[in-house]
């Protein structure tokens, strides 16, 4: 019953908490101390190898959490605790205080840069299409899908892919929001969608596991820029982000960074050749 009142008063409460939040910005060194005190940072992951993965024993791995784990240890936070989330729920979850940071291959884009505080780039990858063998509809680019009115494409909700598709003239009813990668693969196999799109490395991993000769990968998709992700922090946690960046830069310099991500197939060079500033401004 208490909740009823809370819901009724949501609008007014929210206004006041937002005021509080903006007022508290100067004191955000506290965030790192808070994480140190609790001994772990809560990270959001997507369970999309090789970016993020959960092993059979429940252990979290993947390139993005591995990098984050090392950096947090350097910062004095012993461990990371991951919760799996849909891509679409990550930024709202971050804002709602569900996680301290998103380390999930959440690619930097200007709109996202406006909503969260990104670290410097960590993982870079280009787009790929998963199609049935022989690519029966000859779908090589987003424009191809836009032109063929029978073609449907699936991708994660709240991902960049939906925006690319829309821009290339794919109406929203032909872009199917698929909750997870395995469902996307299954929907291509079953012929529910013609294309499933994710970054190249994710698609490759998916296809390798499925081991299905009736599938084919189009990579990279022509005309698409390489995108890079970064660890995403809540707006207001910039001090924590800056501390994270300092450690990240040290690792990049020492070659330790490459040692962590290259076994997963990512290129350290790609991440080091660009910056947050460029990526956040790129589409403008």
């Amino acid at each position, binding site marked *: *019953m208490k*909740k*009823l009142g*809370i*819901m009724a*008063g*949501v609008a007014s*409460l*929210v206004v006041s*908490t937002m005021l509080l939040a903006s007022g508290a910005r100067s004191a955000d060194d506290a965030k790192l101390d808070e994480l140190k005190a609790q001994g772990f940072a809560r990270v959001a992951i997507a*369970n*999309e190898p090789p970016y993020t*993965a*959960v*092993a*059979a*024993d*429940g252990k979290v791995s993947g390139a993005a959490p591995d990098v984050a784990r090392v950096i947090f240890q350097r910062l004095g936070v012993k461990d990371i605790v991951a*919760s*799996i*989330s*849909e891509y679409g*729920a990550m930024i*709202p*979850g971050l*804002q*709602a*205080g*569900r996680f301290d940071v998103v380390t999930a291959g959440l690619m930097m884009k200007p709109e996202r840069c406006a909503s969260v505080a990104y670290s410097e780039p960590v993982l870079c990858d280009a787009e790929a299409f998963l199609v049935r063998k022989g690519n029966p509809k000859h779908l090589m680019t987003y424009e191809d899908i836009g032109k063929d009115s029978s073609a449907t494409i699936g991708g994660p909700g709240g991902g960049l892919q939906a925006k690319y598709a829309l821009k290339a003239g794919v109406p929203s009813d032909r872009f199917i929001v698929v909750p*997870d*990668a*395995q469902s996307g*693969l*299954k929907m291509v196999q079953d012929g529910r969608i013609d294309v499933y799109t994710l970054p190249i490395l994710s698609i490759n991993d998916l296809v390798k*596991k*499925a*081991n299905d000769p009736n599938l084919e990968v189009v990579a990279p998709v022509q005309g698409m820029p390489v995108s890079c992700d970064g660890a995403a922090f809540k707006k207001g946690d910039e001090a924590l982000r800056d501390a994270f960046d300092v450690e990240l830069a040290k690792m990049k310099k020492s070659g330790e960074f490459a040692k962590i991500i290259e076994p997963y197939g990512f290129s350290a060079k790609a991440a080091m050749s660009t910056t947050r500033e460029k990526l956040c401004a790129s589409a403008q």
Partner: protein
Amino acid sequence: MTDWSGYLNLILQGAMVTVQLTVMGAALALVMAFVAGLGRLSRFVAIRCLATAYIEFFRGTSGFVQLFFAYFVLPLAGVTLTPLQAGVLVLGLNVGAYGAEVVRGAIRSIGREQYEACTALNLGRWQGMRHVILPQALLIMLPTFGNNAIELLKATSVVSLISLADLTFQAQVVRSQTGSTLMPFATILLIYFILALIIAWGVRTLERRLARGLDGVRV
């Protein structure tokens, strides 16, 4: 070809979370059912209205929507709940609202003559409720409570959508790790069914025990 034993372990962990959610949710639901159910029978208009508002609100909106609201919107209002807390809170309040109607119905089904006997023996309102009416009403509530508990068990699957690692969620994890869809889903369907059978059996046993000596009196 695949390491099933490792994944089975993952699914069993999920089953533990599901059981935990069901038990804690049921405990909250039970409390809310009695509070709101008795509240609806209160002499005070304000309490009746409050109880009715609670019941209609939680029965009127979808549990799924309530869960998303509790998980994503309440934190913006300064109330941050862990997925487990959000799950228990929403499931408990939701099923409690249904349970409240069961409590009310059962109490009202106790014949007027029992209330009159209480008056004739000079028992107070609460004394009569506590010692005479509720013990009898409980027996009437029990089978429906059992059904509600099974509904609660089933509803826990929804928490997988707010990334709480329950049975359904773990099935999804196993699915994305192994590429097999049939095995994880078939396994968890079976586990859910077994859990439901256990609840049904437990309630029947409890019912038999409570009904001892009442044979032929209760319908």
